[in-house]
């Protein structure tokens, strides 16, 4: 894109924006919303960042310590294991949700008998509150009455109780998340698929494109913006995983969010580190969103 000469118009864009009465009204209209966002979102964020540079306790800001909290945080085993778990969880679960979700979307995009029913049925897992499904799965993984533990032990897949092993717990959490949110992914992708006009496929078929060609040359490119939105949503959601880990592992599996909670709510001494971790989550998530928007060219508005 080419940049217009700087001094083209005196007063710049500000003057023009506010010189136009229609635009001005628009700004006045969004002003209250903007103010509220400043108060409830921007201020706490900035305040958290400011606090993270201090030896803060729950009651006092404390002295300025620069990046010491961050250095200590990266030296904390609990944080590192939380970070590792979160990253593995996010990458693996979003990957499988996307692949399976796309498959389901393609399947239910076709017209067949009972399609409405199937569409409603796939949404059932997603409709459960996470804490409830997590508690339910915990029971199934449990060694006394848990069916999954029983079967997995029976066929020799595992030799120890699932809930006692950190790796198995993480794998279990990924499974539960895939089970629970694939429908959401499928629904978003289905909405995208339905915006692709049938004529495009018809034309391709006339030109002799086979199934694979139609999929990779038509479906995928036309679905790209939907995919990016869906994957970004899911990535953000998985990245802040809390309830699933907390309930299913009975607080044994650590994520970034559980680290923050332990720091600021349970611990009496790690408030500063917990707060630094909250800022860390914010910044990394922000960068992730920027990567999706600029790196992968995600559309954020329908304007031109």
């Amino acid at each position, binding site marked *: *894109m080419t940049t217009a000469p700087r001094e083209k118009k005196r007063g710049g864009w500000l003057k023009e924006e506010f010189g136009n009465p229609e635009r001005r009204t628009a700004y006045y209209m969004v002003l209250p919303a903007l103010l509220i966002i400043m108060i409830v979102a921007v201020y*706490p964020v900035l305040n958290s960042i400011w606090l993270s540079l201090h030896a803060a306790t729950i009651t006092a800001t404390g002295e300025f310590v620069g990046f010491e909290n961050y250095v200590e945080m990266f030296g904390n085993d609990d944080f590192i294991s939380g970070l590792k778990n979160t990253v593995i969880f996010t990458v693996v679960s979003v990957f499988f949700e996307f692949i399976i979700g796309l498959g389901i979307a393609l399947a239910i995009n076709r017209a067949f008998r009972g399609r409405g029913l199937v569409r409603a049925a796939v949404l059932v897992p997603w409709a459960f509150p996470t804490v409830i499904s997590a508690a339910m799965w915990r029971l199934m993984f449990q060694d006394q009455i848990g069916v999954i533990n029983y079967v997995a032990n029976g066929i020799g897949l595992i030799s120890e109780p699932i*809930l006692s092993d950190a790796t198995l717990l993480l794998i279990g959490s990924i499974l539960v998340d895939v089970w629970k949110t694939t429908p959401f992914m499928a629904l978003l992708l289905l909405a995208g698929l339905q915006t692709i006009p049938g004529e495009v496929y018809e034309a391709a078929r006339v030109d002799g494109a086979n199934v694979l060609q139609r999929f990779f040359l038509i479906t995928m490119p036309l679905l790209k913006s939907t995919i990016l939105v869906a994957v970004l949503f899911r990535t953000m959601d998985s990245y802040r995983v809390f309830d699933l880990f907390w309930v299913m592992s009975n607080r044994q599996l650590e994520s970034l969010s559980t680290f*923050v909670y332990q720091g600021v709510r*349970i611990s*009496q001494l790690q408030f500063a580190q*917990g707060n630094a971790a909250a800022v860390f989550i914010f910044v990394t998530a*922000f960068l992730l969103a920027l990567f999706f928007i600029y790196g992968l060219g995600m559309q954020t508005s329908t304007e031109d």
Partner: protein
Amino acid sequence: MAQTTGTMAATPVNRGMNRRDFLKVSGAGLAGVALLGVAGCGGGGGGSEGGSGEFIFSFGPDTSGSLQEVVKRFNKENKGKYTAKYREMPADTGQYFDKVRTQFQAGGGDIDLIGGDVIWPAQFAANGWILDLSDKFTEEDRADFLPGPVESNTYEDKVYGVPWFTDAGMLYYRKDLLDKNGIKEAPKTWDELKDAAKQVTEAEGTKYGFVFQGSQYEGGVVNGLEYINSYGGQVLDENDASKVVIDSPESSEGLSIAASMIEEGVSPQAVTNFTETESQTTFLNGDAVFCRNWPYMYALAADPDESKIKQEQIGVAPLPAGSAESVSGLGGWNFYINAASDPETQDAAYEFVKFCTSPEIQKFRALNGSFLPTLKSLYEDKEILDAVPVIALAGDALANTQPRPVSPAYSDMSLKMAEQFNAAFKGDVSPDEAVKTLQGELQDIADQAS
């Protein structure tokens, strides 16, 4: 993509792009904002109205209904003088603690009298949030109470709370199965327990020998400390609470005996994710010979919906001893008074404390809700012993209770202990390593807290 960020306000580029950029950046910003847990928040509050003898008393929900009855009686007897207003708090002690702590941090809040867990006083007292009751709750008064609960209220030689009702870890056993196999009495040591469990499971085909609470949580800490204490290990130095002494052969031995339960198959591997609920289900299902649990479980055995075994089949004894004496983890609830309330209200609240801890009311609560009294004399009260057998059975266990470490940073210590104890139970770390790691971690915490 050749676009760059940060150009939006400064350069007069193509308008459409500009606004789009703005939307993009703010969109990303909002997505990020949604992820940031807002760390600090405060609220108003501060003191109660005072003067009228009216005060607010907080406690968790009481399903027995006896607490509501006590409040009603107090208000009737003191009509025109004092009025207690009961505010119900979350049943989960962690959530309740969070709520009260948030109020204190915000400048005191409006709760004047707190019915709180035994592990709270040091954390509140170190911040000056609760009133020093040493003068009100005199040494003479204290002599009538069980020593463990009083100790749990003591921080830096001052007494900050009055014991209300108590709780202690106990050993439940299948009397019928032991009798059948010629075992006359409950095991006195952990080794005896192991042998008895092996013998009975083999003869009777019972699924497990012994279940306890080995999960990584507060209950796991209590269990771990019981093992450690019963071998003579301690967490903090008796004379100097700022000194951590957990790294000792005794502590290591205590964790070893726990780990050996699982290793030798006396306890199921899954016990490392058991809380009270799982232990209780297993035992009441008839799947275990022995079970470590709190007194509440005894009453459940009377209900056929909850239990496949009957009360007559169950025996209760103090927990086994190690190389030192048997020790039961102490639970229970105390009264604490808000230091920020005005003196008149504090006095009114203390009247209520005296009322609730009086022999009559403690007896009433023991008979109507099975709450274990904190007054020594009530353990000889015939009426209570007849009506609530577990109180008779718990008597010995209650004599040997030991509170968890009293420290203003107990929450932090608990997190670390829960982690290491659980790892040692599982066999992920050796008991030696666990106590060595804890020595370093807990000393760090103790140093930071002082």
